C-alpha cells in the first residue's frame, strides 16, 4: 500500500510514482500541493505514500499539531460540562471539542455517565471543519454500540508524536510500520490494555504501576529515539526482564 519514497519540499514528483485509476479522481493528502495546470509538488519532507484502491497520495511526516478529521479516534480530556454537552480538549491550547452527554452507549437522560473535569474519554471525531469546533461521539451512531469507545478509568496517559500515533493505528503495525515493541512485550508475557488516540495520546493500563510505566517508556522511547526493529525488540526484552 505504501511505497517507501523519500521526498523533499519543492521536488518534482515522478509521474509514475502517482497512482492512476480509471474512474476515481486523484486525491491529494497532507503535504502535497497541486499547482495548476498539472504539477504536484510536496510541501514537506517525508515518505510518499500511495493508496491504489482509493487513488490517493500523501506525504507521511512527523510533526505539526493535531488537526481533527472526521472519523479519527482520539483521547480527549473533559474540561467542563454544560447543559447537554461536555467540552473536551483534544490537544493543548486549542479550542475544545464538544461531546454530547447522550452519545454514550445506552445513555439516557438518567443513565448518562457523570464525567467531571479531568476525566479521559476515548471517542471518535464526527464533525471537523476548519472554522468550527470539532464534535465527538463515544458510541457508533449506526449500531448504538460503544465499540470500545467511552470513558477511560485508571491507567496512565502518555504523549507521543502524531506520526507515532498514526503508525500505532495502522491495521498491521508490524508489517506496515515496523513497530514490534508492543508485540514483543506481549510475547514476553506482559498483560496490558491500551488505547491510542490520533491526537498523539496513548492510554495504558495494567495490573501494576511498574508494568504501566514500562509500557509507556517502551512506546515513548521507540518514538523519541526512532528505534529500529532490532532495537525495539531489545528494549522490550530488557523492560520485560526488569519487571
Amino acid at each position: 500500500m505504501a511505497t517507501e519514497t523519500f521526498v523533499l519540499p519543492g521536488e518534482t514528483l515522478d509521474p509514475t510514482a502517482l497512482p492512476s485509476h480509471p474512474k476515481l479522481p486523484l486525491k491529494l493528502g497532507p503535504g502535497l500541493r497541486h499547482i495548476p495546470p498539472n504539477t504536484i509538488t510536496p510541501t514537506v519532507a517525508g515518505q510518499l505514500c500511495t493508496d491504489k484502491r482509493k487513488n490517493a497520495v500523501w506525504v507521511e511526516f512527523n510533526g505539526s499539531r493535531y488537526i481533527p478529521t472526521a472519523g479519527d479516534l482520539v483521547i480527549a480530556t473533559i474540561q467542563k460540562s454544560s447543559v447537554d454537552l461536555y467540552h473536551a480538549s483534544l490537544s493543548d491550547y486549542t479550542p475544545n471539542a464538544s461531546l454530547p452527554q447522550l452519545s454514550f452507549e445506552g445513555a439516557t437522560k438518567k443513565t448518562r455517565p457523570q464525567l467531571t473535569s479531568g476525566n479521559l474519554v476515548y471517542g471518535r471525531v464526527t464533525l471537523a471543519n476548519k472554522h468550527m469546533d470539532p464534535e465527538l461521539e463515544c458510541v457508533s451512531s449506526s449500531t448504538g454500540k460503544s465499540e470500545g469507545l467511552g470513558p477511560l478509568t485508571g491507567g496512565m496517559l502518555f504523549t507521543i508524536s502524531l506520526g507515532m500515533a498514526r503508525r500505532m493505528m495502522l491495521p498491521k503495525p508490524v508489517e506496515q510500520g515496523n513497530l514490534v515493541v508492543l508485540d514483543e512485550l506481549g510475547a514476553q508475557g506482559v498483560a496490558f490494555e491500551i488505547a491510542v488516540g490520533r491526537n498523539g495520546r496513548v492510554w495504558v493500563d495494567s495490573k501494576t504501576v511498574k508494568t504501566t510505566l514500562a509500557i509507556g517508556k517502551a512506546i515513548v522511547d521507540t518514538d523519541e529515539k526512532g528505534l529500529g526493529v532490532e532495537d525495539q525488540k531489545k528494549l522490550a526484552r530488557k523492560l520485560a526482564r526488569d519487571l
Partner: protein
Amino acid sequence: MPREVEPSLNEKQFFAKALQENIRLDGRAFDQFRALELDFGDEYGVADVRLGKTRVHTHITAEVTTPFPDRPFDGVFTIATELSPMTSPSIELNRPSETETLLSRLLEKTIRRSGALDTESLCLIAGSKCWSIRADVHVLSHDGNLVDASCIAVIAALQHFRKPDTSTEGEQVTVYTVREREPVPLSLLHFPLCVTFSFYGEGVLGKGGEEEGEVVLIDANLMEEQLREGSVTVGVNRHGEVCQIAKLGGLPVDAVALLHCISVAGVKVKELSKFITGCLEADAKKRDKGGMMAELRADNDRVS
C-alpha cells in the same frame, strides 16, 4: 490569557499511586536530578543549560556606566529573566506571570543579594564610572524546575564571562579591545546554587497511610510541579553555606525535614559545582589553542 494545561484525573491518580509505591514516573530516585548538560557559546559568558527537557540560555554582557549615586564605589549587577510564549503558550509577552516573578526574585535573592559577584571590583572611578554587568536569562523550554536550571546557567555563565581589561590614569579610563589585551574574568566570591524540594502530603497521597505521610522530590518536572502541595528552594554554595531559603506557602514543613533538605542540598550543590567546574575546564582547554592563555592573562591570582 490561556490557562496552563493541567494533568488529567487519570494522570493525577496514577502519579499518587506510583508515589505510594515509591516510584517516580520517569524512573528516577526521589533525590535524583535529571540529566544535566551545559554548553558554552563561542562568545564569553554564554551558557546553555539543559536539565531534562528544561532549557535555559544565559548571556552575560558588560558596559561602562555611572554608578548609583548612593553607592559610588559599587558597580551594577542586574539579572533579567525572560519567559516568552515559546516556553509555554500560557505565558503572555509583557505581562509577568507568577512563574516569572518568582524566578527573577529567587535568582536575585540567591545570586545578587548573597554577594556572589564582588560589585566593588566593578568600580572604575568612584562616583563616575563603573562596569554594569547584566545577566539575561532566557527560558527556552519549560519542563519544571526553572529556578535550579537558571541558577546553574547564571553561575556558569558568570564564571565563564570575561570583561574587557581596563587601565585608569587620573580621570581617564581606557577600555582595551580583545585584540589589545586579553579580557579578565569577574571576581566571584562564592558560587551559590539552588535546589528545589517538592512536597507531597495528604492532598495528593490520600489519607490512611500508616507510614510517614509525606514524600519529598528533588528536581520536579512540570507535571510533578503542577501536582505538588508545597516547595522549598534552598540556595547553598559549595562550602555548604546557606544563602537563602524560600518557602512560599503550601504544605507546612517541620524543622527536621527542613534541616534534612538543607543537608541534601549541600551534597547536591557540591555535585553540581563539580560538574560546572569540569565543563569550564573542558571549555578553557578548547579555547587555549596555542597554550598561551597563561601568558596572556592580565588578572591577578586570587585565593577563593
